[in-house]
């Protein structure tokens, strides 16, 4: 079964080929099945079929084309020639004896290179001879062959160009004669023992003359040309042709234009080598026209990094061509470096892209829209079965117009870049901006012409233009196969219209009488008319029209999607040229601008238009080839001349223009340009293509490849850094209070400029030197790493600070989390919790500590508990003013990168100032942060650690307290009122003779303080957890159907029923079973089961106990062991007043001494309020609260003082000497009493002492049942297993 090809191909379009990658690169894949019509010599082999007696011409054409191809290879050999001498090794003195071997080796190496040069020399001799011979054929007074055709003229010009370029290269490359002289020296050394070296020597001399003579090729060509016969006719034709083509500038793409510009000065010199000649030349072409052309383009691009200047060429050649020196007007043209300032500025305005970029932008936008719309129309047309033929022609015609316009735009833009480059090379930067670090550095020439010669704005314009060229190129390239048949059809229609209609009417009217011309015209019809395309016409008409019989109505053609062949175009052009020139080369005047012609002006115009259209057809037939040529920007990379003159192997990549552009995009962070960031890499693609295909040099490709690899790595890492910074600062500015920012004067600087990374983040295919790189996955990989590094950094930073930094840590982690959320909208990266857990070393299921939790605990143990003091009023812990007891060794602060904090400096300082508010103390906010950061998994672990700390402290206090107990006197009773306050104090001092045990005392106090601190922390934690739980409860209660009862109890809203969430999903499941159209009812029953599970889980979580009460229970259990020692039962059964050594006594003593010390020294906050918390809690848990309140020394003194002040008022007056100190002491005592009673009342509320059955808690944390305590905490309420 056979399927028509069209249908089979059309069926392919049913595949879905959507792709969400934007076109961020230029065209990359070239498919061209056709040999280029414009440059392939094969195309002209069928010329003979048209029997126009052009066989001689065609033969010459083929020969010239072959020479051009060879010549281009020679130029690339010369251009890429690198000096070998530099690489030659020097022999050390110790090896002088093997000097001869070295010579031989060197000779062999150099011989290979020199044989290439010899080949070039031979080639140029034969090429000049052939070209001269070819030209002479057309210069005979009576020519015997048909021609030259226009194609032939072009081939001559191109070969001329190749020769001139070769000459130029030979002149410019200083390393070649250098290498050669070395070669010659080694040759004389080596050849000493050879025989018969004379011929070789002669050859060498020849080569030396060739290499060292400037313009040797041109001089040789000149000799060849004028050897036998004068060639001035053909030279003049060539000049006229070039000048007219340049002036018209219609069908020329930039490579051709540059060829003409390069050849024209040399042609002029050759054509004016005698006075007669120059006279006749300037008769045909006015001198002003030439001067205008030279003036319009003072620099002509020739090689990637070398330009030509017509003025300079003319001047230099005048030395070698003495006749030419008479042309003073041509010789006084200023070269580029000697232009007067004003003119130079004019040129500058013309050459710099920056001055045209606005217009180019408008052109680009306009063209892209119109091209796309034409394309859509064409698609629409193809999808319709029976479209109106006229409409179809119109659509295809407009597509054709768009393609022509596109080619012209691309040509104009690319030539702008070429010319700007040439201009920049001709005017190196005078003074590179001085760098602050090293002004002494000498800049290489290449740096002066490239690196410092493009300002930021110019780089921007260049990037923009490059991306325009590349994007239009890929736009056109992509619809190659879509538009090609439409283009063929349009061209076919144009040709047929001309040969069948225009020519027919010309034959009928104007040229009826002129045999010669009408014969040519009918030949034109014969060789290109496609009569059969006229199928609509009846047979008879076809017959008549074939014989050229008049017809009044215009012919209408049925489309045939076939373009004319290159040979047809060639013949048509030839014939038109014949008509207008009359076959006479000496005909004065120009090509079409001839007024004295026998052809009426109207017809001439028509012929002219068609003539130039024909030459453009070839470009359109070579669709993809033309696009490839026009969008090829590879020349921006090459720098062979500067490499040679700078005597370095390669320049650093900072000097490389493509990299400069990429770097600019990344560094300046212009939101509009970011999407073009990959465009400059196309330059590398192009240049590597050139290195391999045109220059055919492996080493160049290797250099490019190495540079690309390096650049791409840098690019990706810089890009990732930019992306990361951007998202971080975005998140950071989101997290700032919006209303506050609004009220702020300079709030603007915290807002963020938006950037468009989406296109880049979606790029999965970056084409780079034939490789495909997945940029997206590279970015994702690096982002994952950056986030992890950032978390690591934050932890490191936290570890180098104290516990108070926890608020800042939380804030930074929040920013990081938000930026992860924002970024994960565009790119797939790991979830934040996963990364955080990984970095916290917290992924194990059975370990409950984490990096953060253990750090917090270590910080508490080593720094916080010993060095922070509590202020009961503010509910804050602050760092003790005293120098820390144990100086804690902390890792140094890791070096800060701005984007590891909040992104930009401004945002950093904003968040920093917020964090500063919390950096000086520890309080409720810090507790919140701890709870949120370590979460429910590690919080119990931390609690356990803290509670163990309490019992350890209690254990360690035991022995010290025993020592203090021993030091107490046998008996110390109540203080007598007689001595007054002062007496009491003295008495206390006598009784408490702990003087020798100061250290012990402070140690005990510190222990008590730490216990108190831990307990207070528990209190804070309790408050925080309550809040968190409440919020949690509020969120879950409606789903669980819970309502608060009248007395604060939680009630179930529907007794016995299911909670709302379960009911909801159950009913949904039930409805889904009965509903007919629902396919997956099983899903709903799964959901409803999960709802039941969630219900259970959340309900079980509701009544969590109080952490503080649990902590008190644990403390009480820890104290239990020492109950007998610290709270001895009185032997008598009465309260033991005088001999008691119970804990309260000790604490009372400690407290009063501490108070005295505090008063004497100005250092108030040595221990803080947590001593009271610790001491009072122990006293309370031991059941000694009432004893303490009764027998506390300071209480007694206060009592005494009260009594004293009531009776003897004057005591304060005459005790002025020490009354001050005393008053302060009394005040402190009062304060202590207030604090103690505060603690006691809190304890009474949270932990009422009852005499009842209770649980104790074992060391492991498990409760121990049914142990009878007297006067102990009612821990029963608080234990976790309640209700179990």
């Amino acid at each position: 079964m056979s399927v028509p090809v069209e249908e089979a191909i059309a069926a392919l379009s049913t595949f879905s080929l959507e792709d969400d990658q934007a076109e961020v690169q230029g065209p990359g894949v070239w498919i061209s099945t056709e040999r280029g019509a414009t440059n392939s010599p094969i195309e002209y082999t069928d010329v003979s079929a048209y029997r126009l007696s052009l066989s001689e011409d065609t033969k010459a054409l083929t020969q010239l084309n072959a020479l051009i191809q060879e010549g281009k290879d020679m130029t690339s050999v010369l251009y890429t020639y690198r000096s070998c001498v530099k690489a030659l090794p020097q022999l050390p003195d110790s090896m002088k004896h093997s000097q001869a071997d070295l010579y031989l080796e060197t000779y062999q190496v150099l011989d290979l290179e020199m044989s290439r040069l010899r080949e070039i020399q031979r080639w140029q001799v034969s090429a000049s001879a052939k070209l001269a011979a070819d030209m002479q054929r057309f210069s005979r007074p009576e020519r015997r062959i048909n021609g030259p055709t226009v194609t032939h003229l072009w081939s001559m010009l191109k070969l001329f160009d190749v020769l001139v370029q070769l000459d130029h290269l030979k002149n410019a490359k200083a390393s070649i004669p250098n290498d050669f002289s070395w070669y010659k020296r080694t040759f004389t050394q080596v050849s000493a023992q050879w025989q018969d070296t004379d011929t070789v020597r002669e050859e060498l001399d020849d080569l030396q003359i060739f290499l060292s003579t400037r313009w040797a090729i041109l001089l040789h060509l000149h000799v060849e040309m004028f050897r036998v016969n004068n060639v001035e006719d053909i030279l003049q034709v060539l000049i006229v042709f070039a000048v007219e083509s340049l002036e018209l500038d219609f069908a020329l793409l930039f490579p051709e234009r540059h060829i003409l510009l390069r050849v024209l000065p040399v042609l002029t010199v050759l054509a004016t080598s005698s006075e007669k000649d120059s006279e006749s030349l300037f008769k045909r072409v006015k001198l002003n026209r030439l001067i205008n052309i030279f003036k319009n383009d003072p620099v002509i691009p020739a090689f990637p990094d070398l330009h030509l200047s017509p003025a300079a060429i003319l001047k230099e050649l005048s030395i070698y061509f003495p006749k030419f020196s008479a042309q003073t007007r041509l010789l006084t043209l200023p070269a580029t470096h000697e232009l007067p300032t004003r003119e130079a500025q004019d040129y500058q305005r013309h050459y710099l892209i920056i001055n045209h970029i606005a217009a180019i932008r408008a052109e680009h936008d306009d063209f892209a829209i119109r091209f796309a719309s034409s394309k859509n129309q064409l698609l629409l047309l193809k999808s319709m079965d029976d479209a109106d033929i006229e409409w179809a022609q119109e659509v295809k015609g407009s597509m054709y117009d768009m393609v022509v316009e596109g080619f012209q735009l691309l040509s104009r833009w690319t030539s702008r870049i070429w010319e700007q480059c040439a201009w920049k090379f001709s005017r190196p930067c005078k003074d590179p901006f001085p760098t602050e670090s090293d002004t002494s550095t000498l800049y290489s020439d290449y740096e002066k012409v490239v690196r410092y010669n493009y300002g930021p704005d110019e780089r921007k314009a260049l990037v923009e233009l490059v991306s325009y060229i590349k994007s239009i190129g890929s736009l056109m390239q992509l619809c190659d196969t879509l538009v090609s048949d439409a283009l063929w059809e349009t061209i076919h229609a144009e040709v047929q219209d001309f040969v069948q209609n225009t020519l027919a009417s010309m034959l009928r009217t104007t040229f009826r009488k002129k045999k010669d011309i009408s014969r040519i015209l009918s030949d034109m019809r014969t060789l290109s008319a496609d009569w059969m395309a006229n199928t609509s016409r009846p047979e008879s008409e076809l017959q008549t029209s074939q014989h050229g019989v008049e017809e009044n109505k215009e012919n209408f053609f049925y489309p045939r999607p076939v373009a004319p062949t290159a040979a047809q175009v060639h013949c048509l052009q030839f014939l038109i040229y014949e008509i207008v020139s009359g076959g006479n080369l000496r005909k004065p005047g120009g090509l079409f601008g001839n007024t004295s012609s026998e052809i009426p002006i109207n017809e001439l115009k028509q012929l002219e238009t068609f003539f130039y259209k024909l030459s453009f057809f070839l470009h359109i037939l070579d669709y993809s080839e033309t696009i490839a040529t026009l969008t090829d920007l590879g020349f921006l990379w090459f720098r062979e001349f500067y490499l040679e003159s700078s005597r370095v192997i390669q320049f650093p990549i900072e000097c490389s223009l493509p990299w400069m552009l990429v770097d600019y995009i990344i560094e300046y962070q212009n939101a509009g340009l970011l999407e073009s960031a990959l465009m400059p890499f196309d330059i590398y693609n192009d240049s590597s293509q050139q290195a391999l295909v045109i220059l055919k040099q492996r080493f160049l490709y290797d250099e490019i490849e190495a540079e690309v690899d390096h650049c791409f790595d840098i690019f990706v890492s810089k890009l990732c850094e930019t992306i990361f910074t951007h998202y971080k600062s975005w998140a950071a500015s989101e997290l700032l209070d919006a209303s506050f920012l609004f009220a702020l004067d300079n709030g603007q600087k915290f807002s963020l400029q938006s950037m468009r990374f989406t296109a880049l983040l979606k790029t999965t295919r970056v084409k780079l030197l034939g490789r495909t790189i997945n940029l997206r996955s590279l970015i994702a990989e690096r982002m994952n790493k950056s986030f992890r590094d950032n978390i690591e950094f934050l932890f490191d930073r936290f570890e180098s600070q104290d516990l108070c930094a926890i608020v800042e840590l939380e804030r930074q982690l929040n920013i990081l989390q938000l930026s992860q959320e924002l970024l994960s909208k565009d790119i797939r990266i790991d979830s934040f919790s996963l990364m955080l857990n990984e970095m916290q070393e917290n992924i194990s299921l059975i370990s409950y500590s984490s990096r953060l939790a253990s750090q917090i605990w270590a910080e508490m143990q080593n720094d916080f508990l010993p060095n922070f003091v509590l202020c009961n009023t503010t509910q804050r812990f602050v760092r003790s003013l005293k120098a820390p007891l144990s100086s804690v060794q902390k890792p140094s602060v890791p070096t800060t990168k701005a984007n590891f904090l909040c992104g930009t400096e401004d945002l950093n300082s904003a968040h920093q100032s917020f964090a500063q508010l919390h950096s000086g103390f520890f309080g409720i906010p810090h507790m919140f942060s701890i709870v949120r950061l370590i979460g429910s998994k590690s919080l119990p672990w931390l609690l356990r650690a803290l509670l163990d700390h309490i019992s350890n402290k209690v254990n360690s206090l035991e022995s010290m307290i025993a020592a203090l107990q021993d030091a107490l006197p046998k008996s110390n009773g109540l203080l007598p009122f007689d001595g007054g306050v002062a007496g009491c104090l003295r008495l206390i001092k006598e009784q408490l003779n702990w003087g020798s045990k100061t250290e012990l005392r402070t140690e005990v106090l510190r222990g008590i303080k730490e216990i108190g601190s831990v307990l207070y922390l528990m209190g804070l934690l309790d408050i925080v957890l309550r809040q968190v739980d409440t919020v949690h409860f509020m969120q879950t209660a409606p789903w669980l159907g819970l309502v608060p009862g009248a007395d604060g109890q939680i009630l179930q809203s529907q007794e016995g029923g299911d909670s709302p969430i379960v009911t909801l999903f159950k009913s949904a499941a039930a409805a889904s079973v009965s509903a007919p159209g629902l396919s997956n009812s099983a899903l709903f029953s799964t959901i409803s089961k999960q709802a039941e599970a969630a219900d259970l889980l959340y309900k079980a979580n509701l009544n969590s106990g109080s952490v503080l009460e649990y902590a008190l229970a644990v403390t009480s259990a820890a104290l239990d062991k020492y109950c007998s020692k610290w709270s001895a039962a009185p032997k008598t059964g009465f309260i033991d007043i005088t001999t008691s050594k119970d804990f309260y006594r000790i604490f009372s003593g400690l407290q009063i001494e501490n108070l005295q010390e505090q008063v004497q020294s100005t250092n108030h906050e040595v221990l803080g309020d947590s001593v009271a918390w610790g001491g009072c809690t122990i006293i309370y848990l031991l059941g000694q609260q009432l004893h303490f309140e009764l027998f506390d020394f300071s209480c007694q003194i206060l009592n005494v003082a009260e009594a004293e002040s009531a009776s003897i008022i004057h005591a304060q007056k005459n005790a002025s000497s020490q009354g001050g100190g005393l008053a302060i002491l009394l005040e402190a005592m009062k304060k202590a009493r207030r604090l103690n009673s505060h603690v006691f009342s809190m304890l009474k509320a949270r932990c009422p002492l009852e005499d009842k059955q209770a649980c104790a808690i074992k060391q492991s944390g498990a409760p121990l049942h049914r142990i009878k305590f007297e006067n102990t905490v009612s821990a029963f309420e608080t234990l976790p297993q309640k209700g179990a």
Partner: protein
Amino acid sequence: MARAGGITNAVNVGIAVQADWENREFISSISLNVRRLFDFLVQFESTTKSKLASLNEKLDLLERRLEMLEVQVGTAASNPSLFNS
């Protein structure tokens, strides 16, 4: 002066040209369709590549997740006693 033009056998050339047009219509239609086939393949390749890339991305994520879960299970499995009670 030798004037150009003058096809020696105009009628034959005309017939040959006509035949040439028709042959070339066939050739260009075939070559165009071959190029379309090529185009399709190139495009197919590139879209397939990006589809594979996005699949790869998902697999990457899953792989890392799985790795994490494996580690977690590993820690649990090394202490089975904790889960037996």
